[in-house]
Structure formats: structure tokens, C-alpha cells
């Protein structure tokens, strides 16, 4: 347990020292969402209807940005060997990395999503469902992304492979997330979307660490 916490602590310290990764993801999120009103026009009702989808897709893409370095840096500088030899189960290394990814990317994106959604004229009644969905969805994305990052480790063109592998797996997250936050959605529909989102998170929490562990072990050979 101390090793697990020490690993998360190490990741957070690294993220603080190299803050550029987190800032880049946030700026990307901001710039992409700001482009939409320019492209589709600033008409409030139309924009508000699209706002959940815009926020979801932009957040998903922004969360992808730091993934390639999540294990890539450790793989290149030899630190991955030390992680694999730390006595932590590879799946737990995956959980620690996913936690760190969520704390340094998912959480900041979640905090940024509220002002962005208001900027996109999302009706106030949809704001809480959007953020609740994003909370679950960002956790799912960190888990899926960690598994993907571990699997493409050592592959040529890993940076290209990663989105192609992870984004299709994230489709349920977008579908339920955006549906639950749609302005026209009924309260029962919102609850249902959130529950499905939670169910998918539970599934990923069980499967993704194992996949990540297998990827790491293969990369260590």
C-alpha cells in the first residue's frame, strides 16, 4: 500500500514539475470548445443544444493528450523496469497511473467544463447532469486511456495508435454522457444515462487495470 501511494505521489510531483502537460490539455480543451461558436454561429438555442456534445468530445480528446507520455516517458528512460521490479502487481501500477492521470488531467478538465458549458449557453438545468456525467466519464476515460497507453507501449507510431485504440472504446461514455446532459432530456432519462455511465465505469475499473498490467509486463520483456 505504501508503494502504491508512493507511486501516485511520484506521479503527482512529476506532473507539478512538468506542469506543461496539464496546461496543454486544458488549453486544448478551451480552444477547441471556443472554436464551435465561431463555426456554427452564436445563436443561443442551437448552441445550447449542442453544448453537451461539444464539451464531451473536446474533453475526451483533451484527456488523450497526456496519455502517450503516461508510460512512454518511463519506458524510454528505464523507470518502467523499476516500477515492474517494485513488487507492485502490474495491474496496481496501472491503477496508480490511472489515478494520477485523472488527478492531473480529468479533474482539471472537470473543473474547466462548468465555465465552458456556460460559455456555450448550456441551460442551467443541464449543468449539474453534465458535470455528474463528466465526473464518471473522466474516470472511465483515465482507466481506458491507461490500458491503451500500456498496450501500445513500445509499438512504432504509438502516438497514432493510441487514439485509434481508445476512442472507439470510449463511445458508450460519449453517448450516455451527452444524452444525459441534453437540454430536452427528462429527469428519468438523466438518471438512466447516469446509471449506465456508472455501470460502464464499474466494468472498466475491473477490466482496464488487468489489460494495463498485461501490456506493461509485455513491454518489460
Amino acid at each position, binding site marked *: 500500500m*505504501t*508503494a502504491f501511494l*508512493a*507511486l501516485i505521489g*511520484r506521479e503527482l*510531483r*512529476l506532473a507539478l*514539475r*512538468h506542469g506543461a502537460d496539464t496546461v496543454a490539455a486544458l488549453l486544448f480543451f478551451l480552444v477547441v470548445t471556443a472554436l464551435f461558436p465561431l463555426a456554427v454561429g452564436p445563436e443561443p438555442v442551437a448552441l445550447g443544444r449542442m453544448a453537451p456534445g461539444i464539451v464531451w468530445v473536446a474533453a475526451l480528446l483533451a484527456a488523450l493528450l497526456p496519455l502517450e507520455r503516461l508510460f512512454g516517458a518511463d519506458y524510454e*528512460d*528505464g*523507470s518502467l*523496469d*523499476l516500477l*515492474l*521490479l*517494485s*513488487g507492485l502487481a502490474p495491474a496496481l501500477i496501472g491503477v496508480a497511473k490511472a489515478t494520477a492521470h485523472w488527478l492531473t488531467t480529468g479533474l482539471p478538465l472537470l473543473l474547466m467544463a462548468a465555465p465552458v458549458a456556460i460559455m456555450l449557453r448550456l441551460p442551467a438545468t443541464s449543468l449539474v447532469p453534465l458535470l455528474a456525467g463528466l465526473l464518471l466519464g473522466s474516470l472511465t476515460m483515465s482507466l481506458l486511456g491507461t490500458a491503451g497507453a500500456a498496450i501500445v507501449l513500445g509499438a512504432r507510431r504509438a502516438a497514432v495508435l493510441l487514439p485509434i485504440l481508445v476512442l472507439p472504446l470510449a463511445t458508450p461514455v460519449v453517448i450516455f454522457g451527452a444524452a444525459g446532459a441534453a437540454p430536452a432530456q427528462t429527469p428519468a432519462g438523466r438518471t438512466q444515462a447516469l446509471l449506465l455511465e456508472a455501470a460502464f465505469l464499474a466494468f472498466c475499473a475491473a477490466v482496464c487495470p488487468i489489460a494495463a498490467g498485461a501490456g506493461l509486463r509485455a513491454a*518489460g*520483456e
Partner: protein
Amino acid sequence: MFLAENLFVVRDDRIIFDRVGFSLAPGAALLLLGRNGAGKSTLLRVLAGMRRPDGGRVTWDGEEIFADPVAHTERLAWLSHLDAMKPGLTARENLAFAACIQGGKILSVLERMGLADLADLPVRMFSAGQKRRLALARVMLGGRPLWLLDEPTNGLDAVSVERLTATLATHRAQGGMVIAATHQRLALPCAAVLRLGPE
């Protein structure tokens, strides 16, 4: 007793090495020699339990290392040909995770490698040799019995090589084992030699 028998490794349909074996008693040392690509690093990965051999077995006191991989990681200290240092962290911070796993005092190993004055400097400012010494300091943490070293003298100056030699001698005097792959001269008295590949 650390024992390897009949090790055999294939990669991409190419035999990396075949029929490799040795036995190592506490206090003993083994020098792995061989050309580039002869499989020295691969053999070290097998001995660390990171890669399963395609044939043969590795045992510690009679027990197969892959039967209990965690127990094996707890007795070894690892140095690959890379230093595994994060440039943005200080020397002390870089060793913090290893110290948490292996135990031992960071400052005392830094002193033994002559790096105590640089403890709070970011590793970004270290020279290649200083980084290597820091990586060696990490190996020394906690007094793990089996040291697996890949090119430990890479980038070290003469003084540091002497310091390393003394450290290895102390480690062996305390009953520790050393397996080092190198193609430079490394003074390991009475070390067994294992040559991989052609002369």
C-alpha cells in the same frame, strides 16, 4: 545460492543464447562478457524475472524465481543501461520511490557515491557520470542481496570506478552477490566469467 540452468532465449525466430548456466554463492560475483547484441541485457532481464526464458530454469535457494516473482524482486537491485532518472526531480526525490520500496537512507548512499552535496539539485543539471553514480546509489539502497548491473561503469571517471569497486567489494564481503554485464574493465576479484556469443 542463485542458480541458472540451461537457459535458452529466442526472439523473433533468432536464438539469443542457448545452454547458459551458472551458480552463484553468497559473496560471489559473475562477470557477463560478450559483444554488443550477444544477449547480456536479455540475460539480466531473465535473471531479474522480467522475461521468462524459453527454456531452462532460474532458482534461488532451490525455488524457481517465477513461482514467486514478488519474493524475487524483493531480493534484487536493478541497474539497466539506462539511468531511469527524471530530469525535473532532485537527486533526493529521484531516489525517494526506490527508498520507499527497498528501504535504506538516501543521504547515506548519496554520500557513499560522493553526491551528498548535490542532493537537492535537479538531475537535469547532472553530467552523464553523475547520473550514473546516482543510479548506482539507488542500487545500494536497502542492502538487497543480489545486484544485477548492466554496464555499471558507463560514463564513470577513474575515481568513481574506484569508488564502485570498493562498494562492490563491501557488498560481497557482507554476503551479497553481484552479476555485472560489461565490456569495460571492472575489477571484481575472483569473479566467475560467463562469455555469451562468439569470442
